Structure formats: C-alpha cells, structure tokens
C-alpha cells in the first residue's frame, strides 16, 4: 500500500514537472539587459566605451544581428543620447550558427550572453554636466521549438563630463 501511494505521488510530481517544462518552452523568456560604461566620468573631447550586456536564459536564444535567415528578425540596438554627443560605430558579437526544428534554414543566434559594444564621443565643446544615455534593444527570442513576437528592452547609464 505504501508503495502504491508513493507511485501515485511520484507520477503526479513527474507529470507536474513535465507540464511546467512544456509551459516554459512556449513562454517568452525574460531577457536581462545591463548598460556598463568603461568610465562614468570623462573629459570633453574623449570617448567612453560602452557595453550592453544581454542575458539570455537557458533553453532560449535571440536572433543575431546577422541571423542568416531572411525571415528572422535581427537583434539591433538604438542608442539615445542628447546632442552634441555622438555614437561611435556599434559592434555586435559573432553569432553561433544553429539548426532548429521550426525552420529549414540555419540561423545565426546569440545564446546565454551577448555583449554589444559602442562608443560615446564627447565633443570638445561640451561643458561640465551629467548626461543619461539610453539603449533600446530590439530583438526576437525563440526557444528550441517556437519563436515569439519581437520585443524591446531598455537600459540606461549616467556619466559626467568633468575637467
């Protein structure tokens, strides 16, 4: 009798876990974003290096900036910073090429973590001040079986122009 009851409890637990897994794979992931500046204070006329760190949960991926497939929506960032600052060219990480069940084509993707780098040019004429830079990450995430509608995530950082 104890064995029968234990079997019932175990099979129910396994069934519940399986349902959770199925649900997880068909639910969009929570993508984490952090904007890190190499320096939070710089002089006018200098360049600040910036990195957008994108954390991707296990079992999911983002389409890369160059996703190879013409139907895959690419990862792209928009950097918002007030004039007269300028954004130096953006560098996207190299993609991992994979094959998934939801497409016949190979896909370029980012897994686990992607770091997107760019620079912020501070013109020589800028006076002492504090400025906020915002980065908007445009992306499409997929599990190993299904893709989700495109989304945006934002990250901000603050820096000072000093003497």
């Amino acid at each position, binding site marked *: 009798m104890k064995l029968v009851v234990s079997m019932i409890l175990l099979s129910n637990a396994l069934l519940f876990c399986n*349902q959770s897994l199925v649900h997880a794979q068909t639910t969009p992931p929570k993508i984490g974003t952090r904007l890190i500046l190499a320096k939070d204070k710089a002089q006018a006329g200098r360049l600040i290096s910036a990195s957008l760190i994108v954390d991707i949960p296990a079992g999911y991926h983002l389409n890369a900036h160059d996703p190879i497939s*013409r139907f895959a929506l690419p990862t792209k960032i928009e950097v918002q910073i007030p004039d007269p600052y300028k954004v130096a060219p953006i560098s996207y990480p190299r993609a991992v090429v994979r094959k998934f069940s939801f497409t016949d084509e190979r896909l370029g993707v980012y897994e686990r973590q992607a770091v997107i780098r760019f620079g912020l040019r501070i013109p020589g004429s800028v006076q002492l001040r504090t400025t906020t830079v915002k980065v908007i990450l445009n992306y499409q995430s997929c599990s190993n079986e299904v893709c989700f*509608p495109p989304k945006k995530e934002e990250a901000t950082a603050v820096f000072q122009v000093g003497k």
Partner: protein
Amino acid sequence: MWLRTSFGVGLVLIALVHATLSQSYTRGITVVDAERTEPIRNGEEAPDFTLEDIQGNSVTLSSARGKTATVLVFYRGYWCPFCARQLSELRSLTRDQGQIRLLAISVDDHATSKKFIEKISSDGNGSVNFPMLSDPDHKVIDRYGLHDPAYDGSKFDGIPHPAVYVIDKEGRVAWSKVESDYKIRPSNADILAAIAGLN
C-alpha cells in the same frame, strides 16, 4: 494515519494535474473570455467579414457565396517563421490550382504585410498570389474563436492561433485545422483533399 494522509495528498495532486490538463494547454489552445471561446467548428456557418488587403481594397468573405469555396488562413504574423514557411508553400497551391480562392488574415498592418510579402517573394519562387488581409483590432479573429490570450496587453494583442478553414460555396465550414502544435500546419495536399471532398 500516515496512510490516510498520503492517500489524501495523492488525491489532491491528481485533482490539480487534472485541472491543469483540462485547461487544454496540451492542445496548445487556452480557453479565453473573448466573443467566442472556442474555434468555429465544421458544419457551422463561417462568420462573414470585410477586411482590407495591402492595397486598401475591401475583401468580403461572402462575395464568393454560390460561386466557389474559400480557403481561410489565419497566421500569427510577419515575425513567425512557421507562418512564413506556410505562406511560402501556399503560393504553389493557388498557382497550380487556379480556381482556389485563398485569403490570409493576421493582425499585421498593410505596411508590415507588404514587407512580409517582399521577403517571401525574395526566394525567386514567385510573389504571394493571394490577398493578405489586415485585422488589426482582431475582430474577425475573435469571431472565429482563435484569439490567443498569451499576447494580450502587448503590441501583438489579438494574435490568432494558426488555423486553416475550407469554407464551402454555401458559406459553411467544411474542414478546419486549428493549431495544436506550433510546428504542424496542414499541407497543400491536406487542403486540396478537403476541397476535393466538397464535391
């Protein structure tokens, strides 16, 4: 005492699992509180509608009544790779079977659908040769009971569960396939067989 407690816990767990399964989650469809809570079934009258194609022309389902059958394809949107593959394949259905009237419906706006068509056509296998209709307020999607609530509140509110309907000349649903698995869509052969069955 221990036995009774364990048995009781086991029964509660069984009840919980049964409740989870009965949400139809394993069928990939969640019951929603929309205008219609279940997809339109075979034998029912297909709700009539008028939607615009990418050129802004009005297209009415019932305009074919008494003349020809209609294939209705509801797809998730431009971002869905399975949908892209399905629509790409459907080009050969309408090209090879000239009498087939096919209408594709999504919540995408005209501009987005135009870009989607350009992407599909860029494989060199011909352009999309059927109307892509825009249902941005998902009124038609709701009336067919296809509303997927997983995206409610987002920019993609109203996305449908992928579905294909064959509507006969009298305006009744003769055949339907509503997604129960993201990866599986009816083939052109399935649709042709359904149309052949109308005769």
